[in-house]
């Protein structure tokens, strides 16, 4: 670098921008990234504003402003650390740069951890695109299927089949085999008898639920709809409550078999909410992972880190700030705002 003045004179005649090619490349890439994320965020805003009744209750959406706020804070701290790391690289204080990049990387993992907690909460409440009931008919269907699964999981129908087979076998069996078959039959009968009340309760529930579904079908006829609007028909909210009630009753009565059954929920626009939520936060999370990979290359250098990595740190830093930038907008848009 001792001949920097002569070099500078030469480079003044050069075409191009006075920045490293890699930095120009990164900025061009960030330009495409702006379009990429604005497409998602813009679609989300437009869809949300166009959907009256979009879910905004945190109890329904499992959106938690404190977790989101913490994640915002985490990313801001990490951004600050990247800036300090880059500054240290420029001042050739590589040890300090490394230290701050380690902090950044750790904060990246903290962000992903908090994000995982949030995702887990949504997945465990079945806030998933395409899985959310948006009307009473669908909620009823979901509850019926869930209870079917619960019965299936106990092995009830398999045991019944086996019992039937054994009873046939018993008639044809020879004297000395009979004893063992009989004990097996007794075992099966005992287990089946234990599950019987639950299976029968589910059967009754399904019969009732089917009837309700038929009523919903009728109600969705145009005339009934208008009639109900005019009268403010209170019948309409009686039925979903009775569905929730009977599901809760079944769960309470047979906790051994039905504890994992989801209580039916109707979330208007829940599916498009979940789609946009997972699309935006998912792509953002992928960007965080890519950023962590970029930093990993620097961290791998350890004590060998030198000024040849300065541009790398600057460019991955720019990328990381962009990831922070996206989150700065996602946080209020997903966790706070209310377009009514």
């Amino acid at each position, binding site marked *: 670098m001792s001949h920097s003045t002569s070099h*500078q004179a030469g*480079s003044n005649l050069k075409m191009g921008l*006075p*920045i*490293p090619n890699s930095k120009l490349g990164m*900025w061009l890439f960030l*330009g495409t990234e*702006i379009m990429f994320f*604005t497409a998602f965020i*813009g*679609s989300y*805003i*437009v869809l949300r*504003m*166009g*959907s*009256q*009744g979009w879910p*905004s*209750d*945190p109890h*329904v959406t*499992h959106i938690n*402003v*404190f977790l989101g*706020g913490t994640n915002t*804070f985490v990313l*801001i701290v990490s*951004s*600050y650390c990247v*800036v300090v790391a880059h*500054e240290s690289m*420029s001042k050739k204080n590589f040890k300090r740069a490394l230290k701050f990049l380690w902090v950044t990387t750790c904060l990246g993992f903290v962000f992903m951890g908090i994000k995982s*907690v949030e995702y*887990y909460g*949504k997945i*465990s*409440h079945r806030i998933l695109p395409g899985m959310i009931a*948006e009307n009473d008919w669908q909620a009823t269907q979901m509850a019926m299927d869930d209870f079917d699964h619960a019965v299936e999981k106990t092995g009830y129908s398999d045991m019944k089949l086996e019992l039937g087979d054994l009873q046939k076998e018993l008639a044809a069996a020879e004297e000395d085999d009979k004893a063992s078959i009989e004990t097996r039959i007794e075992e099966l009968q005992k287990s089946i008898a234990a599950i019987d009340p639950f299976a029968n309760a589910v059967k009754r529930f399904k019969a009732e639920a089917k009837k309700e579904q038929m009523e919903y079908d009728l109600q969705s006829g145009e005339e009934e709809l208008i009639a109900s*609007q005019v009268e*403010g028909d*209170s019948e*309409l*909210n009686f039925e*979903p*409550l009775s569905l*929730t009630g009977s*599901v809760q009753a079944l769960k309470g009565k047979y906790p051994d078999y039905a504890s994992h059954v989801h209580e039916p*929920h109707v*979330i*208007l626009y829940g599916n498009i909410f979940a789609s946009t939520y997972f699309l935006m936060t998912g792509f953002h999370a992928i960007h965080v992972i890519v950023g962590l990979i970029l930093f990993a290359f620097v961290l791998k250098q350890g004590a060998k880190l030198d000024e040849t990595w*300065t541009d790398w740190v*600057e460019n991955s830093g720019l990328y990381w700030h962009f990831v*922070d*930038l996206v989150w*700065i*907008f996602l946080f209020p848009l997903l966790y*706070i*705002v*209310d377009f009514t």
Partner: protein
Amino acid sequence: MAYRDTGHEDHSHGHVSYIAVFFALCIFTGLSVLADVIHLPNTAVKTVIVMAIAVAKATCVMLFFMHLKFEGNWKYILLAPTTILAIGLPIALMPDVATSYYISDVPQKYDYEEFMAVHGHHEGEAHAEGDHHAGDAHEEGEHEHTEGDDHNSHEGEEHEEHGGTEAAESSEE
């Protein structure tokens, strides 16, 4: 490396106190959360406040952390077209999807009308109801038991008593 001599290094640490920017960003974040937690009576005000804060934060990050304040004029050539094109998409969709005079004819529309007819006249009420509990909702996965009994768009017995008088108002919506 040769390019580094051309002067961008001088810019890369302009006289910015990064720690001051950092604290500003933290305070902004705190204000955003505060705006949500204090339950402003008007959700539009809340939306404007938090979006303004987001823009301020984004500006801080871009100007100082990303050094755009100290870069040459190439930054405009590089970023203005993509930004304008990107913003064009939501603006183009806005009149058709978001701010259309007519409500899109989707099945949810009728469910929403039903819900409004039964449960009361304006969304603000339903949302405020949920917001009272925002403070308790700290743990994502831990309040399953509170789920079934309230806040569902089709439930909410607590609103039932409003039903009669407000049904008439809401049917105009």
